[in-house]
C-alpha cells in the first residue's frame, strides 16, 4: 500500500495551443484534508476534471494507491473511490432526499426496479454516517443550499468514497452553515475519507485544511502543511503580488448634514419591523445577519420591489416611495442583486448593452438611440472599470465572475445613482478581482459621493470596507458595530450570537 491515495505526477493539459496545466504534481494521503487554492482560470477546474476522469492529461502520470492508472474514465474514477461534488451539486430537485441519496447505489447495483423501502434504508444509512437528520420525504429543491450540500456529501460518502473533492463548498453558505459543514468534514475524515477542498476562500481553508497546494496560471506555485502559510502568503501565491489590506473608514464631513439616504420606521408585515437607517455620502455601511433575517427584503423594499411597506424613505432629503424598480432608479437608488447571473445580467448580450440596460433612456434622441453618446459612455466606463475583455462588444458570458460584477457596477454608475445597495458583491469572485471590486466601491463612495449599503456574509470584506456594520435578525436591526470597535473577532462573535 502506498503512502498516497492519489498522486498526480507532472500533469500537463493542453487544449489546442492553450496550456491549462503545466507539470502540476499533487499528492493526497488517505484521510487528509487538503486544500487546492487558486484564482479563476488558474487550472483548478481542469485538475478536478482530470481526477474525475472527465479529461485525460496530455502529459504526466496518475497514481492511485501507488499504481499508475491511464485512460481513466469517469466510471473508473468513481470505482477508485473518487467523488466530485460540483458547485451545482448535481442533485435532482424534483426528487426526494431519500431518492437522491439512494439513486447512485441502485444504479451501481444495476437494479431494474425500485424497492422504496430499501431506498429509505439506504438514505437513512447515508445520513447516519454524517450524523445528521433530515426529512427524507422533502423534495431536494425545497432545501436550503446547506441542506443540498449535505445531501450531496452523504451521496458521495454512500458511493464508498475514499476521496471527496468539493468545488467551492462554502460559496453560498453563512458562517453557521460553514461551521456545520466543517463538523461534517471532520467527521468523514475520522472515517478515513480524504477531502480535497477547491476554493479561493483562504481564511476558511486555513481553518480546516491540513495541507495546501496553490495553483497560478496552470502551474503549482506553492505547497506544504497549512502551518507554513498565513493569509497574505496564500494571497501572494495565488495572485503573484501583495494585495493591499488597507481598511477603509469614512470620515464624516462637518456641516454636511443632509443624508443621502434616510429611512424612518420602515416596516413590512411579516418581514421587516421598524427599520431606521441613515446613510451619508461617502459612507459604506455593512449589513449582515443570517439568511432570512430580512436584509434582502430591505434592499428589495428600497428598490421598489416590495411596494407595500410603511414608513418614509428620503433620498437627499426628498421623500420617495418607490413602487416600481423604474421609480427607484429615477430617485437615485441602485441595487446589485445577490445572484448577478440570474438576476442582473443578460448573459448572451454584449458588455455594452448590459451596461446600458438601465440607463438607456438617458441616451435617446427623439425616437432613436444616440449611438455616439452610448459608445462614448460605455468605452470610458469599460476603461474605468478595467474590465478584462477584448472590447465592449464581448458577450458577458465570456467574462469571469469578477469582470461580470464590474459590468453590473458600471451599469449602475451610468444611471447616476446616489445610493448603491450591494448584495453579496464578491460572492464567487476570486481574491484578485475581489480587491479590485473593493477598490472600485471605495472610489464610488469617496470620489462620486455615493452612499453604499453593503449586504454581505463575508466578515473580512465587511471589516475592510465598512464604516459600521448593522446586524439584522428576524426583520429588525438588532446590533450596530461602530468604527471604533469594528474588527473581525467582534463581528464574528456578534454574528455567532444570533440564533
Amino acid at each position, binding site marked *: 500500500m502506498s503512502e498516497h491515495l492519489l498522486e498526480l505526477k507532472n500533469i500537463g493539459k493542453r487544449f489546442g495551443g492553450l496550456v491549462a496545466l503545466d507539470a502540476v504534481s499533487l499528492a493526497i494521503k488517505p484521510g487528509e484534508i487538503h486544500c487546492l487554492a487558486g484564482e479563476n482560470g488558474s487550472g483548478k477546474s481542469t485538475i478536478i476534471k482530470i481526477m474525475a476522469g472527465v479529461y485525460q492529461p496530455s502529459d504526466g502520470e496518475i497514481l492511485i494507491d501507488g499504481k499508475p492508472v491511464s485512460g481513466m474514465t469517469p466510471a473508473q474514477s468513481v470505482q477508485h473511490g473518487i467523488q466530485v461534488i460540483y458547485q*451545482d451539486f448535481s442533485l*435532482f430537485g*424534483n426528487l426526494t432526499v431519500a431518492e437522491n441519496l439512494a*439513486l447512485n447505489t441502485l444504479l*451501481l447495483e444495476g*437494479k431494474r*426496479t425500485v424497492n422504496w423501502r430499501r431506498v429509505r434504508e439506504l438514505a437513512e444509512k447515508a445520513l447516519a454516517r454524517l450524523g445528521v437528520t433530515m426529512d427524507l*420525504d422533502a*423534495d431536494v429543491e425545497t432545501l436550503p443550499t446547506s441542506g443540498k450540500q449535505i445531501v450531496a456529501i452523504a451521496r458521495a460518502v454512500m458511493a464508498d468514497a475514499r476521496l471527496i473533492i468539493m468545488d467551492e463548498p462554502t460559496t453560498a453558505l453563512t458562517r453557521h452553515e460553514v461551521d456545520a459543514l466543517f463538523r461534517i468534514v471532520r467527521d468523514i475524515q475520522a472515517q478515513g475519507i480524504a477531502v480535497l477542498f477547491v476554493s479561493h476562500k483562504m481564511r476558511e481553508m486555513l481553518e480546516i485544511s491540513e495541507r495546501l497546494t496553490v495553483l497560478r496560471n496552470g502551474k503549482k506555485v506553492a505547497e506544504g502543511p497549512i502551518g507554513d502559510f498565513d493569509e497574505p502568503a496564500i494571497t501572494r501565491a495565488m495572485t503573484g503580488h501583495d494585495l493591499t489590506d488597507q481598511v477603509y473608514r469614512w470620515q464624516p464631513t462637518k456641516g454636511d448634514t443632509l443624508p443621502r439616504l434616510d429611512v424612518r420606521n420602515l416596516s413590512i408585515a411579516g418581514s421587516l419591523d421598524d427599520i431606521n437607517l441613515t446613510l451619508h455620502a461617502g459612507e459604506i455601511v455593512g449589513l449582515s445577519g443570517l439568511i432570512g433575517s430580512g436584509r434582502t427584503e430591505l434592499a428589495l423594499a428600497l428598490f421598489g420591489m416590495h411596494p407595500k411597506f410603511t414608513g418614509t424613505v428620503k433620498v437627499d432629503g426628498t421623500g420617495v416611495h418607490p413602487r416600481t424598480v423604474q421609480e427607484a432608479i429615477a430617485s437615485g437608488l441602485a441595487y446589485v442583486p445577490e445572484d448577478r447571473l440570474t438576476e442582473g445580467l443578460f448573459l448572451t448580450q454584449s458588455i455594452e448593452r448590459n451596461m446600458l440596460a438601465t440607463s438607456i433612456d438617458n441616451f435617446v434622441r427623439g425616437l432613436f438611440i444616440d449611438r455616439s453618446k452610448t459608445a462614448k459612455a460605455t468605452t470610458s466606463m469599460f476603461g474605468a472599470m478595467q474590465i478584462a475583455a477584448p472590447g465592449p462588444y464581448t458577450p458577458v458570458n465570456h467574462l469571469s465572475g469578477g469582470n461580470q460584477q464590474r459590468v453590473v457596477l458600471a451599469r449602475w454608475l451610468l444611471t447616476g445613482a446616489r445610493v448603491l445597495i450591494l448584495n453579496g458583491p464578491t460572492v464567487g469572485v476570486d481574491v484578485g478581482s475581489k480587491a479590485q471590486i473593493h477598490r472600485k466601491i471605495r472610489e464610488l463612495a469617496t470620489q462620486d459621493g455615493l452612499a453604499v449599503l453593503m449586504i454581505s456574509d463575508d466578515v473580512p470584506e465587511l471589516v475592510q470596507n465598512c464604516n459600521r456594520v448593522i446586524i439584522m435578525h428576524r426583520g429588525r436591526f438588532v446590533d450596530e458595530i461602530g468604527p471604533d470597535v469594528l474588527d473581525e473577532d467582534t463581528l464574528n462573535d456578534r454574528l455567532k450570537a444570533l440564533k
Partner: protein
Amino acid sequence: MTLFRRSEFIIACILFAAMIIIGLINPAFWSLDNLFGLLRSNVIIGIMALGVLVVMISGGIDVSFTAFAAAAMYLTIKLMIYIGYEGVFLPFVAATLIGLFLGAFNAFFIHTFRMIPLIVTLGTGSVVRGLLLGLVGTSVINIDKMPQQLIAFAKTDLVSLTSATGTNFGLTAMILIYLGLALATHLFLRHTMAGRSIFALGGAPEAASRVGFNTRRTLFFVYCFAGALAGFAGLLHGSMIWLANPRDFAGLELDVIAAVVLGGASIFGGRGSVIGTLLGVFMLVMVKNSLIIMKVDTTWQRVVVGLIIIVATALTAWRDRKKLV
C-alpha cells in the same frame, strides 16, 4: 411526495366540485347513460395522454403524436383491406410499431441535434400528415369498407343495459385497456429505474448523465413510448367510431396536453403522475361533454380548452414557485 400527493388530491376535489355543479345545472349528467358515454370518451384521449405525460416528465413536449395516430390508423386499416387480413391482435401490434418508429425520429432529432422538442415535433407532425395525405390517400374509409373484426372488437361492452326509453347502452370494455395501460405506466414510472430515469432527466439533465443514467436511451424511450401509445390509440379510435379518416385528430393534441397539465404535470419537466393525468383527462372530457350537452358551439369549446391550458399551467407554475420559497 406529500406535496405531490396533495396536488392530486386538489385535482380530485376540483373534479368532484365540478361534477356536482354540472349535475345541478343538468341532472341528466348523473345518468348511467351519460357517465358510460363520458368514460368511453376518456379512452382515446387518455391513452394518448399517458404518452404525453411521460414526455412531459422528461422535460420535453410532443405535438406530433396526433399525426402519428392518424398515420398508424390509416396505414394499418388500408393494409388490412389490401391484403384482406381478418384479425385484431396483429393490426394493433402494427399500429403500435408504426407509432413507435415515428417517435424514434423525434428522439433522433432531439438527441442528435439538441433541438427543441416543440419545434421537432411540430415539424415531424406536419411531415407525417403531409406524407400520409400525399402518398397514401385522402379518402375516408367508411363502415362498409372497415374491417368488421375491428368494429366487433371495439363494440365489446362490459355491462349492457337498456334505458327506460328502450335504447341499449353499455360501458365499453376498451376502458379496461385504458386503465390497464395506465396501471402499467404508473408501475413503470414509479417502480422501475428506467421510470425514475425519466424523472431524473426532467429534473436535471446534466446531473442525470453524471450520475450514470443513460440519458440517450431514456430520451428515445420517452418519444417512442408516446408514439407507440398514439399509434395504438389511433387504431382503437378508428375501430370505435367505425371509420378511418386520415385527417382525424387534427387539433386534438391541444386537448391532450391540456388534460396532462390539468392533471398536475409540470410543463418544465420532472413532475407528473398517472393518477393526476387520469383525473385531468376525465375533467377535460367532462367539461367538453357538458358544453355539448348545454349546446355550446364547438368554436367556443376551443376557447375553453385554451383557457384550461393557461389556467392549469399558471396554477402549476404558481405551485412550483411557492415551493421554492
